């Protein structure tokens, strides 16, 4: 059930009223669990079984890690992680396995190819793993503080953690040590309305006005349609897609953050002006923060991080990024996308040891431009999972100089990208007097955004990150 559907608005309104009514004050978590299950089952009722299975695995294993025999803690934790990853692999990567290793007409391949991809599986699997590792390692919090002694209470809390609808199908990926301590009774009077309003309005604006309008142009980045477009048009399409993917996902995350606030919960920010980054390292600290911090805490550091020498550091970076790429989708192009980013991070790290550039504005600008262009071209691997189409697109950029530029398309892309560009530029400039003025009249941009949501939304499209 997407956030931009009417069914969702009805569900939200009903849930909100019940949640804060005095009759349900003691069953608030249950109310949200029921609403979340309805939210998830709306598209495909059968797949609810997988969500419940995942929750059951994480409930029992996390409970056993904390209250079971201490000698078996490690074994139970590892088993739990393996079961989570096995379920993810089976549902998400069987198709890739079948296409790569089996003949398409074999019965096994047919079976594997037809396995449905449960929406949100990549997100709730990682959340389950976060719970198991947090209670096993106890790096961030004492396990007994988040795992209730009563198994029923623990089951309720864990199911809530995994299924809470704002983050269920496209994140942000929650970490158990951040979320569990927040579970408790919430009061209507404590809602931070202004903060929730700002997140929700900005989120819907980014999704419905920016991303959904850009989508109507960037759909031309499909073979063979792009073959007939000029070089300038192809470059602006790519630029538009870069802005679209940001607006789509950052929009979703902001809506999720705002909705969680309505119910008294805080999610971590998921984007922090990623396109102003002047290095790849910085980009990954600003883009999809909940995933990059997850990969850092639960994969890169356990692999040894940068503590085992240079070569091992580069290797760890590559492994983390390739797996991070594959997390996005079951196609080799995603692994290549991860490899490309991993290589950029490794090369940048190697160079930064040898070259020490003075922090000058012009140098920072050139670095920022380079990172943006690199990241933007790498998005082609997201949009065109077939490699041959990626090379054809790049070839078309090089050869279609004779064709006339589609001014309508280029201008439209510029117009619909401008809010995101402005958003980044204003943050980058940060002139104190302007910041003060904007803060004083902050209701104006929010009023304008709301007006544009009502009058200027593009045709409704599903969120890009749903496929992951």
């Amino acid at each position, binding site marked *: 059930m997407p956030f931009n559907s009417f069914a969702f608005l009805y569900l939200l309104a009903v849930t909100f009223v019940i949640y804060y009514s005095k009759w349900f004050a003691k069953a608030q978590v249950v109310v949200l669990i029921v609403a979340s299950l309805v939210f998830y089952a709306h598209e495909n009722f059968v797949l609810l079984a997988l969500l419940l299975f995942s929750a059951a695995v994480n409930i029992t294993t996390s409970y056993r890690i904390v209250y079971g025999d201490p000698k078996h803690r490690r074994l139970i934790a590892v088993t739990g992680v393996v079961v989570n990853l096995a379920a993810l692999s089976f549902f998400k990567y069987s198709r890739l396995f079948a296409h790569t290793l089996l003949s398409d007409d074999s019965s096994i391949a047919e079976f594997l190819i037809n396995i449905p991809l449960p929406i949100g599986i990549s997100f709730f699997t990682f959340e389950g793993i976060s719970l198991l590792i947090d209670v096993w390692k106890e790096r961030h919090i004492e396990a007994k503080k988040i795992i209730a002694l009563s198994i029923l209470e623990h089951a309720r809390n864990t199911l809530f953690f995994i299924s809470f609808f704002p983050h269920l199908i496209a994140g942000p990926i929650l970490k158990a040590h951040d979320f569990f301590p927040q579970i408790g009774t919430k009061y209507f009077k404590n809602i931070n*309305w202004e903060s929730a*309003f700002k997140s929700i309005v900005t989120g819907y604006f980014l999704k419905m006005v920016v991303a959904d309008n850009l989508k109507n142009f960037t759909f031309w980045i499909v073979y063979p349609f792009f*073959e007939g477009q000029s070089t300038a048009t192809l470059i602006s399409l790519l630029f538009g897609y870069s802005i679209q993917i940001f607006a789509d996902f950052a929009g979703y995350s902001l809506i999720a953050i705002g909705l969680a606030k309505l119910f008294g919960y805080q999610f971590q920010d998921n984007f922090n002006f990623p396109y102003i980054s002047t290095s790849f390292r910085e980009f990954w600290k600003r883009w999809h923060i909940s995933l990059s911090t997850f990969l850092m805490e639960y994969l890169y550091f356990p692999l040894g991080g940068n503590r085992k020498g240079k070569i091992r550091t580069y290797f760890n970076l590559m492994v983390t990024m390739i797996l991070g790429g594959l997390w996005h989708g079951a196609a080799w192009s995603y692994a290549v996308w991860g490899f490309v980013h991993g290589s950029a991070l490794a090369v940048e790290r190697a160079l930064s040891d040898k070259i020490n550039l003075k922090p000058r504005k012009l140098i920072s600008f050139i670095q920022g431009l380079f990172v943006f262009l690199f990241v933007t071209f790498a998005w082609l691997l997201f949009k065109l999972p077939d490699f041959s189409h990626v090379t054809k697109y790049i070839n078309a950029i090089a050869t279609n100089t004779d064709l006339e530029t589609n001014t309508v398309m280029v201008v439209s892309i510029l117009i*619909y990208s401008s809010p995101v560009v402005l958003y980044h530029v204003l943050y980058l400039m940060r002139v104190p007097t302007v910041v003060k003025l904007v803060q004083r009249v902050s*209701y104006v941009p929010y*009023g304008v955004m709301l*007006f544009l949501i009502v*009058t200027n939304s593009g045709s409704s499209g599903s969120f890009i990150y749903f496929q992951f």
Partner: protein
Amino acid sequence: MIKKALLVTVVLLIAQSLFFMTIAKRSKITRHQWQYNNLIAQNFLYGADTFQNVIVGSSLSQRLPEAELPEFYNLSFAGLSCLDGLELLTYKAYLPRRVFIETNFFTRPKDESFTETLEAPLLFYPRKYVPGLREGRQPMDWVAIALDRVCDRINIALRDPNVQVSIDTSSATAKRRFDAGFNVLVDRYSKPPVRDILDKTSSELKTYVDKLTAKGVEVIFFELPVNPKLCNAPFATSTRQAIESMFPADHYKIIGMPDCSAYHTSDGIHLTENEVPAYIKYFRQNAF
């Protein structure tokens, strides 16, 4: 802060509505095919009560200009099929005298999200009474139009009047570009439609047609000419056979496809602008 923001929104909405109710009453702009689809659909839903003939179909029929078919309302949608047009016709409960159904791509499943956003009560009624909310009135597109004009002026100013801009359509690069698209079509036409989809869309089409004919509407089927290499390819023949078996010629009027080799298309399936008048002449001769 929230109240003030809402107030700004309301003021802007009122200003925009007044603008479109007074100064730019008839102005509507579209910048891509999906917007154009919405515009056609909304113009039909909120008006178009006088047309006796309605055409439903895909982008192939959308190229038949209303100027040359003034007594027709062309409810065809690029990227969609006749089923979407029939859905809107049913939703509006409008009964023209004749409905012309383009069958080339009737096997393209109905786009539920397209019709749902047009029919959802939460959107339908506000748009009905506040014309500023309808397609073609998006404020950012109006800004884009202004920027288009600036770009055009710059282009004209920069263009050397002594240099004629021409695209060599016979070059190897041009051939590569055409072949890229055409080969995809040849591949698509080389297989009949997927059985399940054919059955589902056939059943939906039959339901719509039965409803219309039961209410006295005459239903006429037609198929637009495509590239001769595609004309009798498995996809086209299967689609044709499905129509002929569902709607036998002794009960329904079918405007057969003319000789494909007599027409030129821009990409294999869409008639070029120059060919449209010839087809319209053929269409008129057989329609009534």
